[in-house]
């Protein structure tokens, strides 16, 4: 059974209306779907010329990641999103369908590693950065990447997992984003947490909330374990008390 160990030194999360630890604590006790809205997190810490092109997805990633990276130069980043910039993709495809020329800005920022590219430029950060899209257990694959970086000697690794509310046209296929959200974890070497992988042939029931938010509920609550299954993989997060 493969196992990795790490500490979660700090975390941040954002969803419409949920910003502070208190907000998330209240949500964790009684999770509810959030009404859809256009609210985006405040990223006024970025100069106006730099933030003007940021989509909500990028703003979410920056808003949870920036404070965690504060005072930590040379911080590797693992960025995870299953669906990525679906609103940009949809706009581009709509232009194509209407025989319109494509917006160079939309196109250049629609690729999956656009956010880490912007992060690198805006922070002058040249550490390792990875953008992952790994279906239903992207968070765990991102943790593996982060654990490898920690094992290589990185004093800390920043992990950001975020999903944007997809345009209505995708609703028949995308059923795991009840509302936009981002979670940032500052990971350091240690043994406070362990993540292990087992396989199963049973069909396991799907969690009601996105897995990153279930993990947040574990972080905020008294539970010591949190399980997540995808295909034949069962991931167990264990907090050592």
């Amino acid at each position, binding site marked *: 059974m493969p196992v990795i160990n790490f500490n979660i030194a700090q975390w941040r999360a954002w969803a419409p209306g949920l910003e502070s630890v208190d907000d998330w604590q209240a949500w964790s006790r009684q999770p509810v779907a959030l009404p859809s809205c256009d609210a985006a997190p405040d990223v006024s810490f970025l100069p*106006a*010329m730099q933030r003007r*092109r940021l989509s909500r997805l990028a703003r979410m990633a920056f808003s949870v990641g920036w404070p965690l990276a504060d005072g930590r130069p040379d911080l590797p980043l693992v960025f995870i999103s299953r669906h990525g910039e679906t609103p940009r993709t949809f706009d581009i495809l709509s232009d194509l369908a209407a025989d319109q020329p494509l*917006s*160079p*800005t939309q196109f*250049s920022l629609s690729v999956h590693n656009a956010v880490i590219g912007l992060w690198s430029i805006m922070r002058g950060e040249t550490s390792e950065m990875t953008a992952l899209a790994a279906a239903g257990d992207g968070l765990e694959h991102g943790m593996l990447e982060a654990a490898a970086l920690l094992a290589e000697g990185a004093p800390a690794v920043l992990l950001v997992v975020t999903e944007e509310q997809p345009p209505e046209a995708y609703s028949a296929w995308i059923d795991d984003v009840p509302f936009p959200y981002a979670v940032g974890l500052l990971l350091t070497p240690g043994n406070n947490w362990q993540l292990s992988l087992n396989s199963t042939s049973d069909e396991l029931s799907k969690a009601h909330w996105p897995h990153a938010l279930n993990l947040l509920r574990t972080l905020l609550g008294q539970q010591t374990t949190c399980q997540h299954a995808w295909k034949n993989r069962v991931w167990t997060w264990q907090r050592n008390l």
Partner: protein
Amino acid sequence: MSELHREIKELIIEALGLEDISAQDIGDDQKLFGEGLGLDSVDALELGLAIQKKYGIKIDADAKDTRNHFSNVASLAAFVTAKQAA
């Protein structure tokens, strides 16, 4: 400020998402790229597209003088006027 100059400034602000800037803030002869307004290469492509769409003109990205046409609002206005007359 002529009508065309104002229109081009509005187009720059709208196409490039310059939220905090109004048409009055952009000088006719102010450099658009690098120092000056501070636009970059992605802006150049986006602005080229917006100009082509709005004025129904064709811009040759490889032509030597294209860079000069895009140096400021006044040169862009002159370029649009010349192209529309052609």
